């Protein structure tokens, strides 16, 4: 069952003209459609993100992504053979016979961008996708990255930028980044900025991951960029180009009133952006669905090892996305696409909410090892179908890290083999019905429950049958406030009470027959009357603690509904 989260990702921007522009980290993913395809095609070689080697001669085929017959992007191998973005697909195929052309899939690209945004949510207070290939991160909390203690704010922003680029790389994406004041300036510098020679680099351009532009240098950083870098729209850019206004510097030199007069609101906005003034705030991305990742295998696979390798990579991606949202998975769904068609789906419950891959892998391995597939596998999907907030501390174990890891692993393995609900901790419930006096809960979930208070037990003296006095009078459970200390309960409670036959002599109970065998009654105490739940499943029972010869102390009751005696528990 898939859990959906509320919220929406809006493309609208709320402008605040008086506030200072926010510090924004922009992450540009060049040729994103191509990167997405190459990443999904990544095979079993452990790290090559390019399109995997094909059957032809064992060398990677050049790859291009096309839409409506035109090449949108192509890889290095295709460029070396003369293919360029904008070429017709036919022309590109003529240049390169082995070229593999993949049709663009904007929906898949959007899903991949959102997936990366989810992961980056763990680095910044807000993340905003700027379609088709840029992610904006709120850099206001950069000082907290890597545990804090940065010598300056610029160093903190540099650390944030490096972390974001590293996260993208872990997920298989190459990225360029920039930090600047304002959404549009940061995006423009990340997307359109070009590497600068070290001798010409300004101080904020000397970081390997990208420039960290101080607020006062925003306009200078934007100056050499083309006007389309400001995100003005193709029509406005065309009109500006017709006026020989090809770069941001020439736009910034024009009087703002003139631009506003000529281009209206678009001109006014262009003038502000050219000066580096963009006070608009990020619109945070809110994930709509739970994370799912997919991997296409190079060829049909029939053995477990390559499947496990692929599952591990998918698990790392899904876990990162959940971790970015502060969530942990409580159930995973693994789907194996079969050759030529069909799929096998397996649900894998987890012991407790976690985004730690080390805890996902043992139950996943158990399930894969136990699969008997009707055909070879051509692809994998892994989704977190049930999630919960991952608490910071599950249980105050007071144990070493390796013991905690051992606990998590063994619980995950047992859950995988025995199924959901087979492992639990008991939580006491305030119910008088004995079988309802506790309920199962997830072991280790939340802080250790308050221990049931150790009740000082008054030893119950069982009287021999026939004695005149009885200890423990009949009492209704509904009048327990002034009752004596709670009586002892048996250590074993039968899942289903067993009927007993009473044997008596002269009005005295002398034996109880169970499974055809009579057991002499040595002593008994009671009754303890338990009555209740008239609104749902009413019950009325008189319980006795009876010591039977050769058996021990048993907990029996007479059911008011049918008047019969039942064995319910044993004081073992």
């Amino acid at each position, binding site marked *: 069952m898939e859990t959906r989260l509320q919220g929406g990702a809006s493309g609208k921007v709320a402008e605040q003209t008086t506030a200072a522009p926010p510090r924004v980290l922009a992450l540009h993913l060049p040729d994103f459609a191509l990167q997405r395809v190459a990443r999904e095609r990544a095979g079993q070689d452990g790290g090559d993100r390019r399109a995997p080697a094909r059957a032809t001669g064992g060398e990677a085929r050049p790859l291009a992504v096309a839409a409506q017959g035109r090449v949108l992007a192509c890889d290095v191998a295709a460029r070396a053979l003369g293919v360029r973005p904008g070429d017709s697909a036919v022309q590109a195929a003529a240049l390169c016979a082995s070229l593999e052309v993949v049709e663009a899939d904007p929906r898949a690209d959007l899903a991949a961008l959102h997936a990366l945004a989810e992961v980056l949510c763990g680095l910044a207070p807000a993340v905003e996708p700027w379609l088709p290939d840029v992610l904006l991160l709120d850099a206001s909390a950069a000082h907290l990255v890597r545990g804090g203690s940065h010598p300056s704010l610029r160093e903190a922003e540099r650390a944030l930028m490096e972390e974001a680029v590293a996260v993208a790389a872990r997920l298989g994406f190459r990225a360029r980044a920039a930090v600047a004041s304002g959404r549009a300036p940061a995006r423009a510098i990340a997307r359109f900025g070009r590497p600068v020679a070290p001798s010409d680099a300004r101080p904020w351009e000397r970081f390997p991951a990208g420039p960290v532009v101080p607020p006062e240098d925003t306009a200078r950083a934007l100056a050499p960029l083309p006007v389309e870098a400001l995100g003005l729209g193709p029509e406005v850019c065309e009109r500006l180009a017709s006026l020989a206004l090809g770069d941001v510097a020439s736009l910034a030199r024009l009087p703002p009133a003139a631009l506003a007069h000529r281009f209206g609101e678009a001109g006014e906005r262009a003038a502000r952006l050219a000066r580096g003034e963009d006070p608009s705030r990020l619109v945070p991305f809110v994930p709509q669905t739970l994370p799912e990742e997919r991997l296409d295998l190079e060829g049909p696979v029939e053995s477990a090892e390559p499947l496990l390798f692929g599952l591990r990579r998918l698990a790392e991606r899904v876990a990162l996305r959940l971790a970015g949202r502060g969530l942990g998975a409580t159930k995973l769904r693994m789907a194996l696409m079969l050759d030529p068609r069909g799929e096998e789906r397996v649900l894998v419950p987890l012991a407790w909410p976690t985004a730690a891959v080390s805890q996902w892998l043992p139950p996943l391995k158990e399930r894969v090892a136990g699969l008997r597939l009707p055909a070879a596998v051509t692809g994998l999907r892994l989704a977190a179908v049930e999630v919960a907030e991952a608490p910071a501390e599950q249980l105050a174990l007071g144990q070493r890290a390796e013991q905690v890891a051992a606990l998590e692993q063994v619980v995950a393995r047992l859950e995988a083999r*025995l199924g959901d609900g087979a492992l639990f901790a008991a939580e006491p419930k305030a119910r008088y019905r004995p079988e309802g*006096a*506790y309920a199962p809960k997830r072991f280790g979930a939340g802080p250790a429950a308050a221990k049931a208070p150790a009740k000082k037990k008054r030893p119950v003296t069982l009287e021999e049958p026939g004695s005149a006095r009885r200890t423990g009078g009949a009492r209704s459970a509904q009048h327990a406030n002034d009752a004596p200390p709670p009586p002892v309960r048996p250590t074993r409670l039968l899942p289903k009470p067993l009927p007993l036959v009473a044997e008596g002599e002269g009005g005295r109970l002398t034996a109880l027959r169970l499974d055809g065998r009579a057991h002499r009654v040595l002593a008994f105490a009671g009754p303890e009357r338990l009555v209740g739940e008239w609104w749902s499943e009413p019950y009325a029972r008189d319980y006795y603690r009876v010591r039977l010869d050769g058996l021990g102390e048993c907990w029996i009751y007479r059911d008011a509904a049918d008047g019969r005696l039942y064995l319910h528990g044993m004081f073992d």
Partner: protein
Amino acid sequence: MLCATKSEVLDRLRGEIRRIERRPSLRPDWRASGLAEVDALLPGGGFPCGALTELAGGPASGKTALALAALGRATREGALAAWVDGRRELYPPAAAALGVDLARLLVVRRPKASTIDLLWAAEALLASGAFAAVAVDVPTAGLRPAQWDQVSRRLVQAADKGGALALWLSMPGEARAPAAARVEVEPPGRDGLSRVRVTQARGMAAVGAAVRVRLAVAEEAAQAA
């Protein structure tokens, strides 16, 4: 006397090897049951850790209370305990009354699980090293002798590997476990006291020593909490 000394030396060596192999050295070699009269019967003053102890007795003899007393002591010390409930009869409120911290007690119970699955779970829990005490209450009637031999050996190895207190609860007529210690519990008589007898124990000179003790209500455990 000489044999008892040799056994004690062997036990100490096992403890040293376990420590050298970086097994959970925080765990002791013995763990008290919480009932002074029973602990006095056992060498080391308690049940051995890293080895199987069989608690044998009828369905209402008091062996479960004895096992819960030992698990309760472990949980009150902050450790984790597990109960593999193959008979599906463990009543947690009674365990709590005997001093068990229910938040630290993992119960394994599955109505349709096979005996082999439950014993596999017991082996995994024992070998994990994450639990200080594991009680296994699984009926073995459906197992063939050869199966039981194999399974019981694996349980012994798992207990040795994990270093936990391993308690095997058995009913009359069920196969005996290859245990380092065997404690027989007889149901209480007219006086309400159960007879607890140690019939086998590594390093114990006087096998067969017995004591009568009230088990169904472990007042000592309640007072200690």
